[in-house]
């Protein structure tokens, strides 16, 4: 195992009622990074995270968390925001944050002081003495996130942290996550919203049907798909398709096609030579969303096969 890995897992398997909901997942999360665990609904993300944290035990496989094979023994160094949010409705926001810190070994008095600071910084200072039941869902979710970082954990695990938040609170949350990474914490977050992953994650794993289908950077994920060109000729006629790649499709005034492996120069030379000219040309890299759809779709086909 690498010393600079916050999490390392090999061959994790979890069966519920005989069904393998996690089927041999490998994960290696370097320290100090934001690591995304992506996957469609029911892919096994939450179960994987719960196994990594030691909330449930894997049926097969090994995992190491912050250098130990007993994840519960380092729980004071970990922060966790579960998918199903939970707070005591009768607790004040400040107390809720301090209580969650106390669970992780932070003295209550220190927790209360930090809670006030964190709430102020998150724009919730006015609600510090409000009971949780009086807060909006988004505010309560932020309070819970603050509770998971109040003890300044080395590893922060966030399961679908953006679900249920409005765009303003999503932006606040993104800022908080980046601030945690800048503080030196390792952040693992699961999501099926690609835009967040694309903006935040240094590395990511894509899980589908209980298995890891991809591991790497966002750029590497996007690199799995060829670039797409959108070409608009100066002169158009019925024979132009003979000079374009086979997958070219007419879109509006122009054509869209996959950039060949050797590049787009030869195609463009042929088009210019035939007198079609270039009125417009753009070459786009595929998004993480495209890569995700492709990877997950391929996983579904593999499983059917």
């Amino acid at each position, binding site marked *: 195992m690498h010393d600079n890995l916050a999490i390392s897992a090999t061959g994790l398997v979890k069966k519920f009622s005989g069904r393998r909901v996690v089927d041999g997942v490998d994960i290696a999360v370097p320290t100090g990074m934001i690591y995304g665990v992506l996957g469609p609904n029911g892919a096994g993300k939450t179960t994987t995270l719960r196994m990594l944290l030691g*909330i*449930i035990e894997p049926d097969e496989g090994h995992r190491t968390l912050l250098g130990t094979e*007993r994840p519960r*023994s380092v729980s004071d160094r970990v922060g*966790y925001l*579960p998918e199903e949010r*939970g*707070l005591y409705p009768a607790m004040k926001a400040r107390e809720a944050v301090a*209580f969650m810190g106390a669970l992780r070994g932070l003295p209550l008095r220190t927790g209360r002081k930090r809670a006030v600071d964190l709430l102020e910084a998150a724009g919730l200072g006015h609600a510090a003495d409000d009971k949780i039941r009086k807060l909006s869902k988004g505010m309560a979710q932020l309070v819970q996130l603050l509770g998971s970082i109040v003890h300044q954990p080395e590893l922060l695990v966030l399961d679908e942290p953006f679900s249920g938040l409005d765009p303003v609170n999503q932006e606040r949350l993104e800022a908080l996550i980046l601030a945690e990474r800048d503080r030196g914490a390792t952040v693992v977050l699961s999501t099926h919203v690609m835009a967040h992953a694309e903006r935040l994650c240094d590395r990511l794993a894509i899980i589908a049907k209980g298995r890891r289908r991809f591991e790497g950077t966002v750029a590497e994920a996007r690199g799995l798909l060829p670039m797409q060109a959108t070409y608009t000729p100066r002169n158009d006629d019925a024979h132009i398709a003979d000079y374009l790649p086979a997958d070219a499709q007419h879109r509006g005034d122009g054509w869209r096609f996959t950039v060949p492996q050797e590049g787009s120069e030869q195609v463009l030379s042929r088009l210019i030579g035939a007198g079609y000219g270039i009125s417009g040309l753009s070459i786009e890299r595929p998004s993480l969303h495209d890569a995700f759809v492709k990877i997950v779709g391929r996983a579904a086909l593999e499983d059917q096969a």
Partner: protein
Amino acid sequence: MSRLGTLVRQTMTIARRDFVATVFTPTFLIFLFAPVVMGSFGAIGGLGANAATSGGGEKSRIVALVSGDQARLMMQVDARLRRVYRDADEAPPILTTKEPATDAAAQARAQIDDRGVEVAAVAYGPLDYPQILYTPRATRAGDYLAELAEQTLRAERAGVAPLSSATKIKIDRTTPRLGRGKESGFFAVFAIFFLTLLLAGQVVSGVAEEKGNKVIEILAAAVPLESVFFGKLLGTFGVALLFLVFWGTLISQIGTLMPAGMAAGLAALTPAMGMPMFTLLFFGYFTMAYMLLGAVFLGVGAQASSVREIQLLSLPITLIQVSMFGLGAIAISHPSGWLATFARVFPLSSPYFMAGRAAQSPDLWPHVVALAWQTVWVAIFVAVGVHAFRRGVLQSGSGKFRWKALFGRA
């Protein structure tokens, strides 16, 4: 911090939260003053019953069909005999004398059938061979009339003046009275039953709150479930202690609140090992009874998935407590039988029985062993409850029973 230190710290964090969340609510006041409501209903019921009894007592009579001097003499003897009865409930019905008619038997029968007065027994005929009629529930009244006839005849022959003059001196025993040990033992068993019946049942819904508001996932990720369960137990036990301290202080300061009979009964308790040690052991066994029953209730309640299921558990919970009380109470009256051995060893009845033994026997070492034995079972019940919760609710597939979570590494 050591593993044990961490476990204690985590447990106390949970316990503190539960204690504060329970005590600082308006509902707690209802819980705290529930005995007032209970006592009020008891008092109202008692007054009603007393009124009904005394009403009946005023109407009930015994009748002697005697004439002249014998009637006056009988009234004097009756007044003297009644001095023995301190309690109005124990005294025979009020005596009435009447002149006998020609057909005394018919007159006596008519007295019994009188609709205006409830006559329990009637004596007629000569006092040396009196005939006594009595109703089925008035055997004692009949016996009293027979004794009254006997004593009236004696007074007739020897005079009514007392033949002896006694000097009465009240002193306390220096040794326990025979049978007092059993009474003290039963009192101890009953007191623990009463307190646990009042207080231990609330543990059953301990984890329900966390399951309902999804906090259980936060707790399960941050601290061992053993700490969660122990914390819940300690938190509710703290509430129970607060309840006891409040009422204990109140009752001890205002002695008049305690019924006279109960106060006298308590004062007469003479536990075999002395009151200070008995008090200490009683507290220890109450704690153990609470923890043992609480651990079972908590484990079972944690499996419930709705409030309705938790409510359904209240009957079996009460039955378990009554069964353990019954077992302890029977066993303590025959402390050398096989049932006593079973009650001593069976974890749920052990605190009841051993509290009773503390009142009966001065030996200390069995209590040290018993408390250690019960502590081990608290840990076992919690471990089993946690195991079931982990498998059934958290859906952890680990089939391993985690003794180490309690006694060693996580």
